[in-house]
C-alpha cells in the first residue's frame, strides 16, 4: 500500500501532523502500536506561551476547545504551575489566590482524586476548604470492583448523570465561592463541563485525577475522528518493526500485522514518543531508537542517566533522537532526506520548539510544513 506520507506513532504529534497533511490534500497513514501519552495529559500545554491561531483552529475544527489566558493552573496535587494555553476543562487563574472558600467534592470510594492534597494546596494560598463525598447509588455498581473504579468508568456514568451531581453540589454548597470537582465530565460530550459550570452558582474548577485522563481521552477520540473524516488511514494496534532504506532514502516500512505487505511512502515521520511509548529504548549498555537505529543524544556513562534522588530532574528524560534544524532524522551522522522526527522521541534535543505536549504540536506542524514545501 502506498501513501504520500506515512506517520509512525499516533500520539499528539502524529495526529497533528496527519490532520495538517490530510487537510492540505495529502493521502497519509498513521501506524500506531497502542494508545499514547495523551492518556496522561493534564490538559495544559505549559510550553505554549502564545495562542497560535493555527493551533487553536486545528483543535477547534476537531471539536477540541482550547482557551488562552496567561497565569497559573492547579495541578492534581494542589500545586500551581505557569501556563497560558490549555484545554477548556482546565482553568487558568491570574494568581494562585483565586478564591476565598472552596468546596471540594469527591465520589465515595474513588481514590484517584486527591482531595486532601488539593485542600492543603489551596489552604496554603489562604483559602479555606471543605471536602465532601457524594454517595450516588448509580456509582455503587462500580464500587463492587474497587480496583476498577477509575476516572473513565466514572466519566461514562457522568455523561448521563451530571445533572444529578449538579443538584447534589447545589445542596452541599453554603457560602463557598469555588467548587472543585474531579475531571470526569464530558468523556463523550465535550459540552458537559461547560454545562456543569453554568449550572452551579460558584466558580467550578475541574482538577486532575490519576490516569487515564478524561480530557486527554476525549481529545484523542476527537482528533482521531477528525483525521479519519479528512480521509486519513489510521492503523491502530500495529507496530512498525523495520524500515527499508537505500542511500539515505526510506522506501517502505514493515509492520507486525502486515508482515510482507510493506507500506510505501514518499515521506515518513517518526512520532513514536519517548521511553514510555517505546520510541526510545534502553538496555544496560545503550539508549537506542529501535526502528531506524537513528543517532541518539545521550550520555555514554550509565551512571549519569538518572539521578538517585527520585524527585530531582532525571537526565534520561532529556535524551532524544538527533535531527537537523528542519527535523530530518540523523543516521550515522547523516541526515535522511525523507524521514522527519516530531514529538517526544526528540527528547530535549530541540528546545527551540518548547517541551512536552507543546513541543509535540510545534514540531509536528514544522515537519508537515517542510513536507508540503518540498
Amino acid at each position, binding site marked *: 500500500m502506498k501513501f504520500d506520507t506515512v506517520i509512525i506513532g499516533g500520539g499528539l504529534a502524529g495526529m497533528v501532523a496527519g490532520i495538517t497533511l490530510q487537510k492540505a490534500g495529502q493521502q497519509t497513514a498513521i501506524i500506531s502500536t497502542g*494508545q499514547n501519552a495523551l*492518556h496522561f495529559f493534564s490538559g495544559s500545554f505549559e510550553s505554549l506561551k502564545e495562542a497560535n491561531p493555527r493551533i487553536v483552529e486545528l483543535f477547534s475544527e476537531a471539536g477540541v476547545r482550547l482557551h488562552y489566558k496567561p497565569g497559573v493552573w492547579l495541578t492534581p496535587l494542589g500545586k500551581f504551575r505557569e501556563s497560558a494555553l490549555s484545554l477548556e476543562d482546565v482553568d487558568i487563574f491570574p494568581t494562585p489566590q483565586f478564591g476565598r472558600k472552596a468546596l471540594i467534592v469527591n465520589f465515595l470510594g474513588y481514590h484517584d482524586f486527591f482531595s486532601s492534597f488539593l485542600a492543603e494546596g489551596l489552604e496554603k494560598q489562604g483559602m479555606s476548604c471543605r471536602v465532601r463525598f457524594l454517595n450516588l447509588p448509580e456509582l455503587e455498581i462500580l464500587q*463492587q*470492583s474497587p480496583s476498577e473504579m477509575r476516572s473513565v*468508568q466514572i466519566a461514562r456514568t457522568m455523561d448521563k448523570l451530571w445533572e444529578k451531581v449538579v443538584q447534589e453540589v447545589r445542596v452541599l454548597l453554603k457560602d463557598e465561592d469555588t467548587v472543585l470537582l474531579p475531571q470526569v465530565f464530558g468523556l463523550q460530550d465535550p459540552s458537559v463541563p461547560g454545562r456543569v459550570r453554568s449550572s452551579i452558582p460558584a466558580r467550578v474548577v475541574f482538577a486532575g485525577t490519576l490516569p487515564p485522563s478524561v480530557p486527554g*481521552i476525549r481529545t484523542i477520540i476527537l482528533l482521531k475522528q477528525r483525521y479519519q473524516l479528512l480521509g486519513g*488511514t489510521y492503523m491502530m494496534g500495529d507496530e512498525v518493526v523495520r524500515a527499508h532504506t537505500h542511500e539515505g532514502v526510506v522506501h517502505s516500512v514493515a509492520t507486525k500485522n502486515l508482515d510482507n505487505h510493506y507500506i510505501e511512502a514518499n515521506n515518513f515521520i517518526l512520532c513514536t514518543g519517548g521511553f514510555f511509548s517505546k520510541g526510545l529504548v534502553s538496555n*544496560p549498555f545503550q539508549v537506542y531508537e529501535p526502528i531506524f537505529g537513528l543517532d541518539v543524544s545521550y550520555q555514554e556513562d550509565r551512571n549519569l542517566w538518572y539521578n538517585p534522588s527520585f524527585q530531582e530532574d532525571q537526565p534520561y528524560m532529556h535524551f532524544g533522537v538527533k535531527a537537523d534544524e528542519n527535523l530530518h532524522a540523523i543516521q550515522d551522522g547523516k541526515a535522511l532526506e525523507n524521514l522527519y522526527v516530531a514529538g517526544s522521541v526528540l527528547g530535549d534535543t530541540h528546545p527551540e520548539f518548547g517541551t512536552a505536549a507543546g513541543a509535540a504540536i510545534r514540531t509536528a506542524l514544522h515537519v508537515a510544513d517542510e513536507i508540503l514545501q518540498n
Partner: protein
Amino acid sequence: MKLQEYTRSHHNFEECMKCTVCTAFCPVLQANPLYPGPKQAGPDGERLRLKDPYFFNQALKYCLNCKRCEVACPSGVNVADLIQSARIKYDQTPPKFRDTLLASTDMMGTLARPVAPLVNFATGLGVTKTVMDVTLKIDRHRTFPKYAGRSFESWLKRRRKEQAAFPEQVAYYHGCYVNYNNPQLGKDLVKVLNALGVGVQLLEKEKCCGIALITNGMSAKARKNAEHNIGQLRQAIVDKGLKVVTSSSTCTLTIREEYPNLLGVDNAEVRDSMLMATRFIYEKLEKGAQLKFRADYHKKIAYHTPCHLEKLGWGIFSEKLLQMIPGVEFILLDSNCCGIAGTYGFKKENYKVSQAIGEPLFAQIRSVNPDIVACDCETCKWQIEMSTGYTVMNPISILAEALELNEK
C-alpha cells in the same frame, strides 16, 4: 543486545507498567461490574496466579476475548491471551451442556443442514425460543442463524473442474458459517476471484477453527482441530504451493494467533500464506489486476471493523476495496465492539451486557442510516441485524454484487 529477548515473560506480562489504558477500552468493564477488567484479570491477576492458582477468578469467563485491550496497550502486553490462557490452565469446571452445543458449530451444522427448513422453522418459533431460554439458558431475544439446505462444500465440489481451469489457484478455508449458514458468501468469493482469473479449491477436509471451543472451556478438543487444520493448510501451502484465503476475521485470527499463543500449536510454516480474501484481492489489484464495476451501482455503505479484524490489523484492506467501487459512498464507523463476541451474546446471562456494549455502535448506525452495513464477521452480522434492522453484508459480497460481469 538481545537481553530483553531472553528475559521476556509469557504473553509479555512483565511489560505491564500499570498505566490503566486497557481498562478504558474494555467493553465489558463498561457494562458488567462483575468483571474485574483487563488489567486486573490479565497482568495483575497473573502475578498472583503464578504464586497460587487459588487466585484464579471465575469472573474471567466474562471476558469477550475481543482483544481491544491488546490493541490499546502501549506496552505490547497480550492481555487477552493472558486471560484466556488462565482460563485454559486453571478453570476446572466442566462446560455446561448448552456451551457444548453452542461451541460445536460443525457438529450442529452437519446435524441441522439436512433438515434445514425444519430447524430454521423451529428455532424461529416463539415456543422453541422460550424452551431454549428456560432449559438451555440461550436468550430468547436471539435470532438463530439459519441453516442452508446445501452446504458450500458440496456446491463447490460440483464445480471442481470449472474452477481447476483457471490459470491461478487458491485454496479457501471457508469456516463453518459459510458452509452451513451462508453458502452465498462463499459463492460471492468464488465469483470475485474468478473475475480476477483465480480458481478456488477446497482444502481436503477442514475442521472448525475452534474458537468457540476455546472460549467455552474445551481447549483439548480445540487443540485437536488446530492440529488437524494446520496439517490441512500445510498440504495446500507447503506441498501444493497455494495461498489460502479466508472470509471470516475470527477464523483467521484464531489460526494465525490463537493456535500458537493459546493452544501451543505451531503455525510458522503456514502463517504468512493464509490471508483474508480482502487482502488477497487488494494485493492483486495493487499489482495491476482489474475489476470492472457496474455503472448503476449506488450505495451508501457504513463499514464496521470487527474487533478481531482490528486486532489482525487488516481492516484497511476491506476499507480500501469498498472505497474503490465507484458508486459507493463510504462511511467508516467509529471503532466499537458490537457486543456479541461469538457465542458469548447467545447466553442468557450475557444478553443484557451484550446489548449494552453494542449500543454506541447501533446508535451510530441509526444516525448514519446507510443502505448497507459492511462487516467481515458473521457474528457481528447477526448482532447488528437483530439490534438495528439494517442489512449487514461481508465486503466480499458487496464486491460481488457491484461487479460488472461479461456473462458468457
